[in-house]
């Protein structure tokens, strides 16, 4: 099918790329198993005296593990809300012309571009005045600002890939709109929904500035907790690395679940 030359080039690109991609992550992983003495001492390629002390500290100290729980709660909440409200909107943008549709679409996108720094203070004041300060829902709602536009944008692309004749055929066959939408349309674009959910989860999970500004104790995210490792005696590298490794785990689980949806893409939806 493919000639050998092209195939081998692809292999080389992949091997070299993945090697370079994994190298810094490998370094983080080895550091998490090292003691601070070993990290700051002579450079070693793997931990000579592997220790789980860094992980033990995180799993037994409530200040640490509650950060993970908080981050997971607001991220999942954000992903569910974002995908749920973006689906009908993306459908509308894909299928209908309506007053100001292009302007609205672009306005949505511009909200991803708000420079966080100066908006932080107004954000703080706003969320405090409506009583959402330091709640999981508050952070989830704030993250909608950049996730909803993205979700609408990605879903719109996937929905436009489904021929409109399908909608019309379903209508002729006597399907009601809601039945068509939930039983025929959503399964067709489930690849797109998976990809969208992944991106929403990702952007909400890694965001630090906003989540940190809107929380103090009850909903404090893990990435803010990590600044605890910086103390007067310098940075606790091993603990920081272990916390960093643990921040990758939930994401790996999510991508593992959506991998087939990304892989199949929406070739499924081509009727």
């Amino acid at each position, binding site marked *: 099918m493919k*000639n050998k030359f092209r195939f081998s*080039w692809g292999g080389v*690109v*992949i091997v070299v*790329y993945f090697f370079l*991609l*994994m190298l*810094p*992550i490998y*370094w*983080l992983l080895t550091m998490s198993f090292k003691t601070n003495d070993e990290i700051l001492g002579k*450079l070693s390629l793997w931990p000579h005296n592997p220790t789980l002390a860094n992980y033990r500290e995180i799993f037994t100290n409530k200040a640490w593990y509650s950060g993970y729980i908080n981050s997971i709660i607001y991220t999942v909440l954000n992903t569910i809300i974002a995908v749920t409200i*973006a689906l*009908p*909107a993306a459908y*509308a943008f894909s*299928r*209908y012309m309506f007053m100001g549709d292009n302007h*609205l679409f672009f306005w949505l*996108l*511009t909200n*991803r*571009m*708000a*420079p*966080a*720094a*100066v*908006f*932080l*203070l*107004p954000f703080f004041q*706003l969320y405090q005045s409506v009583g959402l300060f330091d709640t999981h829902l508050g952070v989830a*709602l704030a993250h*909608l*600002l950049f996730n909803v536009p993205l979700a*609408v944008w*990605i879903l719109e692309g996937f929905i436009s890939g489904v021929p*409109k004749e399908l909608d019309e055929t379903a209508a002729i066959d006597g399907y009601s709109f809601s039945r068509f939408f939930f039983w025929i349309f959503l399964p067709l674009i489930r690849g797109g929904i998976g*990809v969208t959910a*992944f991106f929403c989860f*990702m952007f909400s999970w*890694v*965001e*630090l*500035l906003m989540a940190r500004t809107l929380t103090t104790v009850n909903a404090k995210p*893990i*990435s803010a907790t*990590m600044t605890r490792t910086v103390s007067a005696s310098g940075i606790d*590298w091993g603990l*920081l690395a272990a916390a960093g490794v643990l*921040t990758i785990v939930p994401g*790996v689980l999510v*991508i*593992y679940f959506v991998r087939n949806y*990304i*892989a199949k*893409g*929406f*070739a499924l939806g081509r009727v």
Partner: protein
Amino acid sequence: MQKIQDHRAWLLVLPVVISVAFSAIIPLITVVNYSVQDILGPGQRVWVANEWFINTMRDKDLHSAFLRNLLFSLEVLLLEIPLGIAVALALPASGWKASLCLVLIALPLLIPWNVVGTIWQIFGRADIGLGGYFINNILGISYNYTLEARDAWITVVIMDVWHWTPLVALLCYAGLRAIPDAFYQAARIDGAKAWSIFWYIQLPKLRGVLLIAVLLRFMDSFMIYTEPFVLTGGGPGTATTFLSIYLTNIAIGQFDLGNGAAFSLIYFLFIQIFCFLFYTVILRAGRN
């Protein structure tokens, strides 16, 4: 695709508009409020009209931060987009290898941004970092990102490429999988070479996802803050002081809300204009 005109579609869009407007418009009004007044204390404010804007526009440091950020955005786009396409093309299309690759490639995207900065901060250090140690002691090139402006710049660019190429690759990969097999079959019957398949089938079909990729990468690289802040703190000197870092220095470091607000409005406007032009050009090019 032919669209039907129906203003009732607004009802489908309404939840999105309300949720985004809540977090977008109210803070924006507050920022506009700050940008035209001098706030001396609670209940004490003076109308200063466009003074902050004039101040900001004459700020030399701001101009250089702006150019620096523009150069940075262009560099990372030029590196990340072709690399992302190449990786997406080379990724296996199915099977367990494809699953493994997708899981691995997404890793950098799922690391919180301050951790990304930390990873490279450690990795690039000559004493405790693998990368810095390798360059200094094995390649024999003097490299120190905390002292040399050039090294700091290269490190930030490489960090961004490492961090964000997977996003471009994943988007392209999803786009490639969406091309129906019939296109490839037709190309095979015509005896098309790999290059012409890429140029006449794959690239045009990727136009949509590439538009997303370029816009996302431009916007985010133009607002980059956390990673270089952790890695270099904007230094050495001002070598990696990007716009957001400069803005935070003004607004939060010096608590100069007026200048900060005026600056952020100009900043916001610039990105909007750029993206609007880009978006329009791409849409036009698509129609022809």
